[in-house]
């Protein structure tokens, strides 16, 4: 078991002929992911170097490959809304958006559509999803790194930061702690898949024994996760690392690394997140290296 993706994942890559899209597809295939088809409008009929057929539309791809159950979106920001709507209207149950800097008004529309149609939307600005030795979707663990830094095991990792998914997984792997699934949810103001969504999925996943979250100043997704813990909806042990405490010394409204990092109404600060998570029973790490030490007792 794992969450979101596993060996039964059959992927479509929207934007497969672009620079980032073709690299993501190539590396997914190298990791063993079943990439059935790609879509680039106007390039239908072509085949990628790896032999993946390219279609003009999602519908055409699905007509030939009805088993597709996951779509990765790697198209320029202004085309993401159209691409995501295309795969969601075609009822592909999991849509993962890698593209960064998608207009927030577009993200709000995609989230609304995904919710009413029961589609799992991960991203935008997601680095991807990886279930070690089973499947990976997106840019997570490229250039052969995936085999070195990720290892199968019992810790679910969920992170706003793409870079930290790799750093944390490497540290866990080096400490002998494997991962069930590693999810990059993106750090935008609005995201399709939240810490809470991931937490609830890991809660149901028999393979996952503990959860690691990497959060950042801004938004209230960490606070919502803490609330779910407090209400007993997430009961597995949680270790959290929250970045951005330094920003408490900056003027309010300062936007940091990710678009979502705006502090509002007292909530959203790193201190507020740490406080809420600690009160809900999560263990708080100060550095990535503390995470395996805090996790060990739960994995015996």
């Amino acid at each position, binding site marked *: 078991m794992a969450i979101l993706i596993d060996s039964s994942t059959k992927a479509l890559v929207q934007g497969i002929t672009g620079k980032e899209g073709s690299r993501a597809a190539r590396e997914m295939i190298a990791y063993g992911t079943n990439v059935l088809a790609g879509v680039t409008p106007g390039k239908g009929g072509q085949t990628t170097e790896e032999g993946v057929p390219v279609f003009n539309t999602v519908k055409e791809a699905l007509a030939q490959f009805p088993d597709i159950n996951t779509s990765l979106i790697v198209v320029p920001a202004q085309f993401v809304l159209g691409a995501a709507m295309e795969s969601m209207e075609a009822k592909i149950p999991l849509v993962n958006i890698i593209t*960064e800097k998608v207009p*927030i008004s577009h993200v*709000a529309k995609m989230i*609304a559509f995904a919710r009413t149609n029961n589609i799992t939307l991960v991203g935008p600005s997601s680095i991807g999803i990886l279930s070690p030795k089973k499947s990976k979707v997106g840019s997570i663990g*490229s*250039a052969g790194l995936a085999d070195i830094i990720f290892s199968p095991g019992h810790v679910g990792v969920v992170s706003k930061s793409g870079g930290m*998914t790799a750093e944390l997984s490497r540290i866990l792997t080096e400490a002998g702690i494997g991962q069930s699934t590693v999810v990059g949810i993106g750090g935008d103001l609005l995201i399709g898949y*939240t810490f809470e969504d991931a937490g609830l999925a890991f809660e149901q996943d028999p393979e996952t024994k503990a959860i690691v979250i990497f959060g950042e100043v801004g938004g209230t997704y960490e606070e919502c996760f803490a609330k779910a813990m407090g209400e007993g909806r997430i009961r597995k042990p949680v270790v959290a690392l929250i970045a951005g405490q330094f920003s408490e010394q900056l003027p309010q409204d300062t936007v940091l*690394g990710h678009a979502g990092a705006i502090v509002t*109404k007292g909530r959203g600060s790193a201190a507020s997140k740490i406080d809420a998570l600690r009160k809900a029973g999560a263990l708080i790490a100060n550095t990535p290296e503390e995470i395996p030490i805090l996790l060990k007792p739960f994995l015996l």
Partner: protein
Amino acid sequence: MKLLEHQGKALFQKYGIKIPNGELLKNAQAEMSLDFPVVLKSQVLSGERKKKKGIIIVEKHEDFRQNLEKLFLQEIDGSLPESILVEERIDFEKELYVSLSYDTDYRKPVLALSLVGGTGIEGATLVPIDVMKGLPDDMAQESLSKAHIPSTFQLSETIQNLWKMFQAEQALLVEINPLFELKDGTFVAGDAKVVLDDNVVDPQLRPFIDLGGDIAILASGGGASMLNLDILMREGGRPANYVEYSGNPPASVVEELTLKVLSRPNLKGCWVIGGTANFTDVAETMLGFVQGLRKLQSKPAYPIVIRRDGPKRKEGFEMLEKAKQEEGYDFHLYGPETSMAESAKIIVRLAYGNPH
């Protein structure tokens, strides 16, 4: 991108939201033709202009010039006004608070309403908006009733116009605080706070914040860069700046950032920091760093600690070693065997010396 009040009000007008009669004055000698009393409003981005002496009410003509001159010289949060907005003072019956923004609990746009103007979103009633339905008249009326605000045609229309602007301009925030209700039942926007989506207006923007310290930082990854600033400050380091590059930028982008970050005087060290990258080409970004170093007016003599991992690290580090030999840079190179936190300790020790 935050807009100045007069820019926000120009947008209000475009979408049919009434604003006070006003004129924009570009300098202290400018003339204006409004009737007194008037309100002089400093055009700065700070949110607390009243408290910071950025707003002056002028009752009569004799006091106008002197107050205008004063306001042009009044610094607010370190910046002088771009211009002064002069407006006729409004005789109002009531002040309301109205805003539209995105809420991360609902993950939807929210309409915030309050009968108490002049305060903020705290205490306002939040009404989530279904983006598929928008904010038609019946929803606007219903929202007002939820906030216990007597609903009128004019108020509902103002709110609907604000929604149209929020959507069409792809704003992150549109706030009218206060929204004046006049005796005749019309509504006039007393102030305008508008934030547009950088993803739309300036997708190339990279956040850069001057933090005033003496260790220059070039960090990669939004999350890792924030975490590393936390760690550096905990170790006693004084960061000079916050900046980060994400994704897989070409060398030219890193070169430009390097020049920007290292051009400030009195630096004691430089910390190039990142975790294990997923897909950033480490050789490419480190090449950009060295290109930036080579273009600096004076060659840095201070220690430079580089901690990085990811695709093409080996090639990148070989290139760095070569540049170190050729140029004599004081590079200290670390891969994943040295933690980010450990490298923070190293740069602090090298930059400030051992406190023995």
